[in-house]
């Protein structure tokens, strides 16, 4: 809807043995999302989520499951050093996600 902010949320895989620093990315992302005028960061427990970012610490991607994907219209999956199956260096993951969230 024009003028309405798109609601973005974050869900972790469970962090059993992460290859990337999930906590750091999880801290950076909400702040970065809040700086975008058309995006609103919300809790994963809320409804009407437009995009859910599933943050997984390794390629096993335990968090990428139907029950979590179903919470939003669209999802972005981080699985270790990759975003939606495209290799991305750990330091660039937050930037790559923000880029994906912006309208093309």
């Amino acid at each position, binding site marked *: 809807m024009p003028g309405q902010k798109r609601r973005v949320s*974050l*869900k*972790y*895989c*469970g*962090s*059993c*043995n992460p290859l990337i620093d*999930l*906590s750091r990315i*999880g801290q950076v992302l909400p702040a970065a999302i809040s700086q975008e005028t058309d995006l609103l960061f919300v809790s*994963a427990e809320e409804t009407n989520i437009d995009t859910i970012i599933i943050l997984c610490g390794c390629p096993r991607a*335990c*968090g990428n499951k139907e029950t979590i994907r179903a919470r939003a219209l669209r999802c972005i999956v981080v699985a270790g050093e990759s975003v939606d199956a495209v290799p991305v260096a750990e330091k660039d993951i937050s930037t790559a996600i923000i880029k994906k969230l912006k309208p093309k």
Partner: protein
Amino acid sequence: MMCGDEYRESLRRLKPEVYYLGEKIESVADHPAFIPHVNSVALTYDLARAPEFEELLTTKSHLTGEKINFFTHVHHSCHDLVRKVKSLRALGQQTGSCFARCVGHDALNAIYSVTYDLGKKNGTEYHQRLVNLLKEVQAKDLFLSGAMTDPKGDRSLSPSQQKDPDQHVHIVARKQDGIVVRGAKAHITGAVNAHGHLVMPTTSLKEADQDFAVCCYVPIDTPGVIHIFGRQTNDDRKCSGCLIDQGNPEYGIVGGEALIVFEDVFVPWEHVFMCGEYDFAFDLVERFATAHRQNYGGCKTGLADVLTGATYALAEVQGTVGASHVRDKLVEMVHLAETLYCCSIACSCQGYALPAGNFMADPLLANVTKLNVTRHVYELARLAQDIAGGMLATMPSESDWKNTSVGKYVDKYLKGVADVPAETRMRLLRLIEGMTCGTALVESMHGAGSPQAQKIMLMRRANWEHKKRLAQKLSGTGESRHD
């Protein structure tokens, strides 16, 4: 679900009888000897509420549909079993120590299945009673210890043959409203900072041992329950006011074990889950042992991650990390740790459903897991100590480092590479010392059963006849050759 501080408050409301160094303890939650152990358990509550760990440490109750802490869950799939291992690794990484809740968790799962089997055979109410307790445990997010190991007295004799029958917990009276039990349970993890104890028999039993076939729940502050806390290596450092010398002041070393004495303790029927059914004791022991031995490639791998990290960081500080033999030993540490993890994941994936509907890990592979832990953790410690060097055992104290006269010398001569302060080296050395010396190693040997207990299970579970037939077929030495 409780948070860590609510757990601490819940302990303060209880008044268990606890002794340490000859003194009666007023508040376990506030005494320096116990605070690290309380902190470690408290983290199992806090991380269940943290977004990063929520997917591992919470689930939905199969009884009520409510969200619960995973440590109160009854496993209903291999996925649940794998998740348990992953959650233990995660908590091992965060604490570098034992967080104690897995024992009661495993006891709940074992008792859940055995009481179901008992009910099917004998029509007993035990399973429903356990389900009622489980609902309470889940709703209140309780931490229960798993109290299995009896003192045993003369190991060559069965419980009923002992000169002193109290060497195994046993029933001394059956009353209209419950039973009275006497005896003790030894080296029980988390015993002084749990909410209650799940008491189980320690061995397979015969008809003469009927009174020793007892399984029950006992709240920690029940009259007649006395806890005598065990000493740990360097435990006086916890009460000395020093922090660096403790190595891991926040979470301590292993779980904090105690001898629990049951001096004619009354247990109401609603908390009794086995009372004389000696022929089910073995199943309970085996299922609990399987669940608990499954764990050790999870938590110990988490600890190994911390130990390997500390060793790597120390090698950097000491300027040895570039040496090929040091790098080879660090890689060996990773290999040892991940082998343990492989074992735990494998026995979980090969788990199966029991008649009650809950899942148990593959017993053979779970015992292999724990047997490997009795070896690999020692080898991990040996490699860490090798890389750390002799300073691990001769380093001056934190107090000398802070002393105005000699502190400058400690600072000067404990320094490694130029740009890193001596304090960094001291802290890493103390962490490695705590994780590799004394109590921590013995726990790896005997926790969840001594190596021989695992070998007995391997002897029972290995399919010897099948193996022989395979060899006979390929070698052309059929069974008839030996008839």
